[in-house]
């Protein structure tokens, strides 16, 4: 039953992606930027998904630290969310960091500007890469604890990045909830929202797959440890 539901979810995600792509391609060109603006259909959804998954990673880290003594089995599942959130989040953050300069070169004439938003997003990316490195380097049972603590340190950086997003700089201001000039024309807003939904569905699909993989790996490691004890 679970498998059928999951397969159904996967099919819906892929269908949504196709539909959103169709809409993104056929949306009218923007008044000032022409076709270059279309990158917003990938740039902004990826950024939102990345931030959401970094938050999930932090929640997983906190959950692991809280549960690790009372309920080690459940704690391991939380740790799985921590590592999956960080890994998949990094992928989406990479998409943001790649699509940003592509647009920037057209709009600003330069690939990269060292303003607060770009710098802080890059910083987040670096922090979560260092989180994954810690998981690789740290040995033994305390690896999960150390990386969970580092995950919390990284999570604290997220709101700092969010606040920096509202400091005026070269990067375009927030499209929604900004000043009066913000907002989108309805014929662009509709494809944009569909892309948001599609990429969120897709992101969650990848996240769940990664989490299942992590659980299987944990089970395999536990089995191996047990066998070497019995041998």
């Amino acid at each position, binding site marked *: 039953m679970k498998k059928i539901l999951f397969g159904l979810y996967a099919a819906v995600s892929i269908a949504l992606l196709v539909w959103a792509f169709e809409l993104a391609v056929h949306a009218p060109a923007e008044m000032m930027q022409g076709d270059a603006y279309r990158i917003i259909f990938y740039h902004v959804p990826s950024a939102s998904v990345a931030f959401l998954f970094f938050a999930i990673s932090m929640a997983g880290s906190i959950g692991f630290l809280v549960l690790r003594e009372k309920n080690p089995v459940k704690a391991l599942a939380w740790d799985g969310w921590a590592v999956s959130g960080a890994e998949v989040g990094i992928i989406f953050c990479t998409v943001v960091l790649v699509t940003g300069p592509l647009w920037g070169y057209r709009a600003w004439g330069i690939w990269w500007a060292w303003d607060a938003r770009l710098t802080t997003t890059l910083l987040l990316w670096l*922090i979560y890469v260092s989180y994954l490195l810690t998981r690789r380097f740290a040995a033994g049972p305390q690896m999960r604890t150390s990386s969970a603590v580092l995950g919390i340190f990284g999570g604290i950086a997220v709101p700092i990045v969010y606040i920096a997003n509202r400091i005026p700089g070269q990067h375009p201001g927030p499209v929604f909830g900004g000043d009066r000039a913000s907002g989108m024309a309805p014929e662009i807003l509709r494809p944009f929202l569909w892309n948001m939904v599609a990429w969120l569905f897709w992101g969650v699909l990848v996240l769940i797959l990664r989490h299942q993989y992590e659980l299987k790996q944990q089970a395999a490691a536990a089995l191996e440890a047990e066998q070497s004890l019995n041998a």
Partner: protein
Amino acid sequence: MIDTLLTHLAKDLRIEWRSKEAINSMLFFSLLVVVLFSIAFDPRGAFSREISGGVLCVATMFASVSALNQAWAREIRHQVLDAQRMAPTAGAQMYLAKVLANFFFVSVVQILLAPVFLVFYNLHILGDGWLLLLVLPLGTWALVANGIFFAALSINSRNRELLLPLILFPIFTPALMAMVNATTGIFTGEFDPAIWIKLLVAYDIIYTTVSLLLFDTILRAE
């Protein structure tokens, strides 16, 4: 309560006083960085004022890693760290004592380095020079508070000396950004460093609090 902290602090200061390992290695390393940067960029006049803030902060950052790596490695010999883990005192006090001691070491290095720096970079400070007495300690605190924490976090890993800068530098970067911008503002006198100083204060408060709260988890991680 405060006794434990003072005992730890006195011990760390005494070890350093007898060996002078941390201060000597930091001093020589930061001197090297300052010399290398002045060869690479040929600092003169206005250009020197623009880059020297960054060079000073980055030199401090790189140099402090050598001291931070030793901070806990010293405790591994003769299983001292294991004994500390079993001690019934809160780990936060040990952490705070180490931060205070290393904060002192890095500050000593900065004070000794300052005249060399002023000479090599031909600096004439155009802004409020006394603000440096606020910016540098705040930035150093951010560096040391995080550094001591992550040094403890990486103590049990393979390649711990390599891991420390890899996890410390990304987390420290917001503070570095604030520190560099504030010192550049002071050296050039072109803009007001107040907002960057406020950012540094906020950063110090947030990360020191989190470190104090989570230190026991790291120390007794099994």
